[in-house]
């Protein structure tokens, strides 16, 4: 149990950090640093979960934090780095629809929109919860992830966008209602599988077709004949 004001300050600080990482993800062109930033963002989330555990004492939060650290800060970035080694792409230079600057600007607008949308919800059910901002940031983060998906050309970057979205959802759930742990685990497994598949498909896009099916095998997802 920590002091409510301190708790609030910490949480707010973490929010700022998350938004910062999100902005970085939107603008960053080097794939390696993208992965690192993502790992950092996930780490911040985990920290946030721990802080909240300290505040509320729900054991679930702790497990979530653990899971996040293992999967999102360690396993996924490692896997992505591994994938990156095998494809010729190193940097994602192309932007479609939105330039990084305008993306950031739109994100700002989005936060307002989401805030606005959320007040409707708040009137109903968030009156006893002080952390309206968590929900707002969560949904905004999800929308920003979506922006990454459509403004970046490379599949790998798109995956990062998707992962960011998922982080947004996690953030949202932290502040709204933690899901039963089993659900969280299943979601993470699902997330993993999608990332793996997307990465594999990224191979296909970035390499010739004949190689593609061989690479499918080499990756060891299924057994060679």
């Amino acid at each position, binding site marked *: 149990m920590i002091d409510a004001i301190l708790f609030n300050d910490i949480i707010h600080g973490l929010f700022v950090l998350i938004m910062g990482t999100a902005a970085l993800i939107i603008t960053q062109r080097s794939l390696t640093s993208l992965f690192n930033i993502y790992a950092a963002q996930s780490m911040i989330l985990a920290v946030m979960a721990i802080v909240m555990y300290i505040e509320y004492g729900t054991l679930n939060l702790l497990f979530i934090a653990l899971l996040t650290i293992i999967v999102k800060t360690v396993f996924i970035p490692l896997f992505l780095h591994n994938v990156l080694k095998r494809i010729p792409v190193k940097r994602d230079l192309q932007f479609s629809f939105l330039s990084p600057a305008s993306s950031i600007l739109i994100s700002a607008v989005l936060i307002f929109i989401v805030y606005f949308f959320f007040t*409707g919800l708040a009137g109903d059910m968030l009156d006893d919860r002080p952390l309206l901002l968590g929900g707002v940031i969560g949904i905004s983060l999800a929308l920003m992830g*979506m922006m990454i998906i*459509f403004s970046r050309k490379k599949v790998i970057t798109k995956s990062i966008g998707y992962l960011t979205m998922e982080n947004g959802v996690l953030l949202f759930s932290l502040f709204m209602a933690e899901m039963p742990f089993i659900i969280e685990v299943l979601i993470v497994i699902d997330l993993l599988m999608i990332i793996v598949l997307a990465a594999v498909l990224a191979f296909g896009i970035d390499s010739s077709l004949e190689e593609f099916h061989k690479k499918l095998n080499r990756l060891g997802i299924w057994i060679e004949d």
Partner: protein
Amino acid sequence: METLFLSGCSLLLLACVLPFIARITPGKTARRIALFVLLSGLACITTASLICFLSGAECIRLLYSLTPELVFDIHFDSLSSFFISLIGFVSFCTALYSFNYIEHGGTEKRRLVLTALLPLFILSMIMVVAADNMFGFLFFWEIMSISSFLLMMYDREKAETQKAGIFYFVMTQFGTLFLFIAFLLIYRYTNTFDIKATDALPQVVKSFAFIAIFIGFGTKAGIIPFHKWLPYAHSVAPSNVSALMSGVMLKVAIYGLCRFAFDVLQPELWWGFVLLAFGTVSALLGVIYALKEHDLKKLLAYHSIENIGIIVVGLGLYVIFNYYGLEIPANLSLVGALFHTLNHAVFKSLLFMTAGSVVQATGTRNIEKMGGLVKKMPVTAVLFLIGSCAISALPPLNGFASEIMIFQAYLESFELNNPVVEIVMVIGLAAFALMSALAAACFVKAFGVVFLAKPRSREAGKAREVSFGMLAGPAILALTCIVLGVFSFQIISGIGFDLPVPNMLPVSILLLLIILIFAGLLKLFHAPVRISETWGCGIAKQTPAMEYTATGFSEPIVTIFRLIFRTKKSNEKEYFDSAESITKRTEAKITTFKFFEERIYMPLAHLFMKIAAFISQKHNKDLETFMVYAFVTIVLLLVTAGFWL
């Protein structure tokens, strides 16, 4: 009665599947058996419905429920049994004709399909009329549309057939669209699918439902401006199918119009004027277009539009007279319209079948390439002549018998005591008279150019009379034309209408008597007969090229109606050099301006295709664009949700 009707229906169903399950080689035997089964089935159904019609009792009622709400309710009242008798009889003759007809042209497999679909088509038409609720009506209506569409696509490799097919399919759906609107509107207010008189509809809704019904059935019946499919579809379909489509299917639409506009909804005065106006326009434009047409089957198809116009005029007059409470003219026009429905079914299918024989014998539908067939195909010629006389409303044949009732109704409008309505009626009468005279002119042209004088092409010269089967069906119909005409007065009073129509029997007897007297006289004189050349002012030898063409024949009328037959001139040139001085090829064309197609149908279609192309193009994008669609939608949804909920 139920048993008779049911066994007839099951025989028809059997005929549907027979060509496929009976793997008899050659397929000819299978087809024969199927057609024979069809014939016997039709005989059963026609007998049952005729008995119902004559006894005047509501004698057949069958039910089959899919769910408690969806019930197939088969019910014969006098209107439906009249129409079923009509369908059954004409189909019977058509089936008789089909025995030999389907053995020509197409592949073996296609003939089998044709044989199988024919009973389905006929059965669906019978069931549409027999259905006693809107659900059953729509159900069989759609089957009718689809089966006729499939039948029509017999020669489907031809570009012409494909165009016709698309036209037909789209227009059919268009009609059905309006039927759905009308029926669902009625359903909304009555909460039942039953066809029964209803007062539950508010006035506005009733009018709206009427418009929908009119457009829906009008499209199927080929009322101008919803007619464009009709000449296309009827001309490319096999002739037995065109006979059924023109002779019977259009009548089913008329049945629907009578049933829903008069039986379910209570007609208002202005409906009568709508019917009258559209009927008159259809009748007049139909025959005017027919005059210009040189495709034999298209010509007949345009005449179908004309005759449907006549029927609709009759219905319109009925509404008007009924509104003013004049019983005799109202009955005259209604009975006239229904009688004309029967008559048109008889003589139009007769004409289509004989035209089919001609087309088969000459291998072309262009009448400019026919001629002289009266000597090659005498029986067909006589049958066609009887049909022509009937459709041109020559007494004492049946076409006249019904048209005179409508004329009579028109003339009786002096009883109306409403100058405005009467003047409208008088104008309608003038148009009606013009239409009737033009029809006669058109059939003089058709019969003259197809059958008389010298053959205009080698194919026409080599034509042979068709086999017995293809004569028997039309012959029955021709006989019916005569009987229905000569005994029209007796028939009308026999079914219980006392109407001021002339008795054609003494007229016919006298006609026959006078002909016999003169023929006898001439026989008595033994006038010597000599065969010689046609007199041609001393030319050495007469060739077919010297004869009037069909174009030449109708030229005066076309000139007089030049406002309607607008032409379009195009001139294309290709040059050898860039300075455009040495001409390589020139093509000048004068084509008839197809007003409805070029000003209404095609522009609408093009507009639709333009929108479609625009929206389609939005789908040929990459993932990023699609994500933007989703993103924008989600943001919008969030905003809406925030405001709205």
